[in-house]
C-alpha cells in the first residue's frame, strides 16, 4: 500500500511524475487552503478591533496619553 503514485525508485525514473501523496485530491487541498486564508483574515480583524477598543478604554485618557508622549520625547530617548 502506498499513498503515492510509486512504491520504490527501482524502476524507470522517467515513469515517476508527482512525488506528493494523494495525487488527484489537489482541488480539495486548494479549497481548504482558500478557507484557511480567509479564516485567518477574519480572526485577525476581529482580534485587532477588540484590542483597539480595550486600549482606547485603558489608555485613552489625557493623563495616560501625556505620560506616553513624554516617554517618546526627543529629550528622553
Amino acid at each position, binding site marked *: 500500500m502506498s499513498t503515492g*503514485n510509486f512504491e520504490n525508485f527501482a524502476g524507470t*525514473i*522517467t*515513469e*515517476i*511524475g*508527482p*512525488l*506528493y501523496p494523494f*495525487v*488527484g485530491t*489537489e*482541488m480539495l*487541498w*486548494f479549497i481548504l*487552503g*482558500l478557507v*484557511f*486564508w480567509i479564516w*485567518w*483574515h477574519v480572526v*485577525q*480583524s476581529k482580534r*485587532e*478591533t477588540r*484590542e*483597539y477598543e*480595550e*486600549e*482606547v478604554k*485603558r*489608555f*485613552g485618557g489625557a493623563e*495616560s*496619553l501625556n505620560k*506616553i*508622549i513624554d*516617554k*517618546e520625547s526627543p529629550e528622553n530617548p
Partner: protein
Amino acid sequence: MDNELAALGIIFAEFYYWLTVVLMFLIHVGFCMYEVGASRHKNHMHTLMKNTMLIPLVTITFFFFGWWIYFAFPNGPGIIEGGLVDAPTAVAWGELMGPHMGGKPATEVFTADDTAGWARINGVFWAAFLLFSWTAASIVSGAVIERIKSTGFYILAVGIGSVWWIIDASWGWHSAGWMVQKLGYHDAYASGVIHAIAGGYALGILFVLGPRIGKFAPDGTPRNISPRNPWLVTLGLFLIYTGFWGFYVACNVPMIDVQAGDGVFFSATNIYLAPTTLSAITVNFLMSLSGGLLMGFIVSKGDAFWTYSSGLAGIIAASAGNDLYHPIQAMFIAAAGVVVMYKLHYFVERTFKIDDAVGAVAVHGYAGFFGVFIAGFFLWGYPSSPDASFHVITPWGQFIGAVIMFGVLGFLPGWVTAKVLNGFDMLRIPREVELAGLDVGANAERYADEQAIIDAERSAVGRAAGSD
C-alpha cells in the same frame, strides 16, 4: 532529461533561481530593519509584525492565484486578441505546482514534454517571482507606518503582492505581454514593473490614509519625523542593496540558445529572452548605485537617510535599461533620477500633505517612473524582444507604459481599495491608539511584568540582608 547537456542546462537553471531566492530574502530582512528603525519606539513591534506577516499572506495567495495570473493575462485579457491564456502549469491545483520528477504526467492535461520541462523549474521560478511580490508589498508597508490598521494593510498587501503587480508583469514583463508587443515596452530590471507600481499604489493609499498626527503644522508646513534608529535604517538599506543582486539576477534567464534560425549561440537573456550578459548588469548595477549615492549626497546635503535611499533610487532609475546602457550612461541616469525623485518628494509632501514615512513613493514610484520613461529616449529604436514583429522601444511607448504602471495599476487600485477599506473602518487606527502608540497594550503588560520582577528582586535583597 534524457541527455547530459539537457540535464545540465535544466539543473543549472534550477540552482540559479534557487540562489536568487536566498539572496532576495535579504531584501525583506533589510525592509524590516529599515521600517523598524524609521518608526518611533511606541510602534516598533507593530511595524515589525505588519511587515513580517505580509510574507505568509502574499506567499499563499501568490500560490493560490498570483502565479496563474502571470501566465493567463499577457493579452489583457481582452486588450489584444487571444483572451485568457490557458495556464495549467500555474494553477494551484495543478500537479506541476507540487514536487514532481518530470516523468509520466498523472493527468491528461499535460504531455510528457510539459512535465520534463517544467517539473524542476516551476517551483524556483515561482519563488523568484514571489520574492518580487514581497518586495512590492514591503515597499507599500514602509510608506504607511504608525497609523494603518493591520487588517487593512494585509488586504492591501495581498492586492499589490498577488494581484496588481503580477498583472503588470504579465502585461509588461512576460515575453509575449501585450505591452511588449504593442508598445515596445522595455523594463528589464523592473523600474516600472515592481517599483513604479508599488510607489503609485502607496501614494493612492496615502491620499486616503492621511498623515500621522503632528506631521504637518496648522499652517500646513511639513515637520520632519526623523528615524528613531538611523543605524538600523542604514544597515537595512545596505541589506536591500545586497538582496538587489539576487533581484537583478532573477530577472535574467541564465542560459538558452538565442540564435534565431540555423546555428547555436548560448547566452544569458533578459526577461524578454533578448540576449544580455551577467557582466553587463553587474557593472551597470554598481555604476547606477554609485550615481545615485553621489547625487543623493549632494541634493540631501549629506543626510544619511536620503543618501542611502538615493543609492537605491539610482539603481531603480536605471533598471529599465540596465541590460543595454553603457555604465557611464547608467551612472548619469541614476543621478538624474535621484534629483527628480528627491524634488518631487518634497513638492508632493508640501502640496498635497502626503506623509510618506520612509520616502517609498519617491524612491520607488518617482524614480521607477522616470526610469521607464528615460529608457525610451536612450533605447529609441531598439528591439523590445527577439520577436521581430513586436514594436520597437520608443519614448511614447515607454511613457504610456510608465503611466500604466504607476497610475493605472498602481495609484488607482491603491486609492480605490483604501477608500473601500476606509468606508468599513478597516484602514486607520483610532486616534487614541495612534497617540499612545500601537504597542501600548503589549508594552503595558511588559512593564507590569518587569515591575513585578523588580519588586520580587527587592524583596529577595531584603531577605538576603536580613539573614546576614
